[in-house]
C-alpha cells in the first residue's frame, strides 16, 4: 500500500543534512510551508542552499531560518523587501551568498529540472548585468541567454488537500512555485491541510499528481483566511 503520510514535520525532515539544497515554496507568506520550515530549523542542518522567490519576510518561516544562520546561499528573485531585515543584515555582513535570478528564469529553471531539460535559451535578461558571462545565441533574429536547470535535494511546499498517494490541490495564489518545485526535487515534502481518502479529490482538479510528492505532513490548522480572521 502506498501511503506517503509521515507522522510529523520533524520526521519528514529527519534526513536533511548539512550542505543540502532545498527549494521552499511560497511567494512572500502565501504558500510558504511555515510549519515545515520550523521543523527544518529544529533539525539544525547548516550550510544550506535555499531556493525561494524571496529571502524571508518579517519574523516568520524562511526569515527565521536565515536569522539562525543556517543558510550559506540563497537563490531568489526579490530579496529586498520592507520586512526582509534578517536577510538584509546577513547580506550587509557578507554572511550570505546571493544568486539573483529574474523571476521567470527562476521558475523556468525549476521547471526545467523537473522536466529533465538540460538547459534552455531565454530572452529574459539579455543585455543586462544578470546575463553577464552567460552564453547567448541569436535564434530567428532574437537574442537569447542560456540558463541551466535548478535541482534540489528537498522541496518543502504547501498544498491544500491531498490523498495518501500524494495528489495535491492548492489554494488560490498559494499555488505559486509549489507544482514546479515538487517536480524538481529528489524528495518533495508537502504540508497539507487535509489528507483525504483515495477518490475524494476530483482527478480533474488535482494540480500536482502524486508521482511528484514523496512525503505528506498533515498540519491540522484552519486555512489561512480563517486563521487570519481568528487572529484579527
Amino acid at each position, binding site marked *: 500500500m502506498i501511503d506517503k503520510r509521515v507522522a510529523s514535520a520533524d520526521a519528514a525532515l529527519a534526513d536533511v543534512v548539512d550542505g543540502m539544497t532545498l527549494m521552499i515554496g511560497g511567494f512572500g*507568506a*502565501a504558500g510558504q510551508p511555515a510549519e515545515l520550515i520550523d521543523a527544518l530549523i529544529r533539525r539544525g542542518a547548516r550550510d544550506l542552499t535555499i531556493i525561494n522567490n524571496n529571502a524571508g519576510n518579517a519574523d516568520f518561516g524562511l526569515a527565521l531560518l536565515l536569522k539562525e544562520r543556517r543558510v550559506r546561499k540563497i537563490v531568489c528573485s526579490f530579496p529586498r523587501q520592507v520586512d526582509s531585515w534578517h536577510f538584509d543584515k546577513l547580506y550587509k555582513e557578507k554572511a550570505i551568498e546571493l544568486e539573483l535570478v529574474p523571476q*521567470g528564469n527562476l521558475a523556468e529553471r525549476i521547471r526545467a529540472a523537473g522536466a529533465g531539460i538540460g538547459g534552455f535559451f531565454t530572452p529574459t535578461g*539579455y543585455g543586462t548585468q544578470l546575463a553577464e558571462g552567460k552564453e547567448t545565441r541569436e535564434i530567428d533574429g532574437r537574442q537569447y541567454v542560456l540558463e541551466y536547470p535548478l535541482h534540489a535535494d528537498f522541496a518543502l511546499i504547501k498544498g491544500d488537500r491531498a490523498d495518501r498517494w500524494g495528489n495535491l490541490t492548492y489554494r488560490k495564489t498559494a499555488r505559486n512555485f509549489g507544482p514546479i518545485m515538487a517536480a524538481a526535487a529528489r524528495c518533495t515534502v508537502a504540508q497539507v491541510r487535509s489528507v483525504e481518502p483515495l477518490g475524494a479529490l476530483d482527478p480533474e482538479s488535482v494540480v500536482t499528481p502524486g508521482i511528484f510528492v514523496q512525503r505528506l505532513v498533515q498540519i491540522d490548522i484552519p486555512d489561512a483566511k480563517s486563521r487570519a480572521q481568528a487572529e484579527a
Partner: protein
Amino acid sequence: MKKFTRDEMAARVARDIPEGSYVNLGIGLPTLVANHLPKDREIILHTENGLLGMGPAPRPGEEDPDLMNAGKQPVTELPGASFFHHADSFSMMRGGHLDFCVLGAFQVSATGDLANWHTGAPDAIPAVGGAMDLAIGAKNVYVMMEHTTKTGESKIVQRCTYPLTGVGCVSRIFTDLAVIDVTPAGLKVVDVVDGLSLDELQAATGVPLRR
C-alpha cells in the same frame, strides 16, 4: 510648470488600454491604473504570482493571506478568474500572450532600453522580481514615470546609466509632462500636458523629440 497628477497619469495610461486586453500592472505608480480602467471595457488583470482576473482590494476584515498580488497586498478574484503556477504565469509573459504591461522606471533610452530594477549603488541590495520578464515579454511595454528626477534631470536619456532591465523593449512612455512613443525613427510626441509648449517639453527632455 503644469504637470499631470499621478491620477491623471494613471487615467491617461488607462485610456490607451483597449477592450479585451490582458494586462500586468507593475508595483508602485502603475498600480494606480487599475482605478482608472474604463468600466465599459473588459480588461483582465494578470498578477505574476498566479492569477488572471484580479479584482480590487477586499473590504476590511475580508483579506485572505492566500490571495495576494505581486506586491504582496491582499486582492480579490473576479468571476472568471483563474489560478496557475509560476512557470505558466511567466509563459504568459515570455510567450507573448500578455498584451500590455505598465512599469515604473528610473530611465528610458531613446531606443527604448529600460532601467528600473537597480540603482547600481554599491551598498544597495539588488532585487529584480519579474521586471526583466515583463520587459521582454509583454507585447506592449508602457512606462509610467516622472519626466525628470528630483534634481531636474531628464529620465529620458540617450543611453541609460543605470543597469538595464531590458534592451529596446519600451513602446510608449507616459510622464507627468507628456506621452511619447518609441519608434524606429526616434521618440515621437503623442500628447503634452495642457499649457506646455513643445519647446518647453524639449527643454526638459534629454534627447531630441519628433512631433
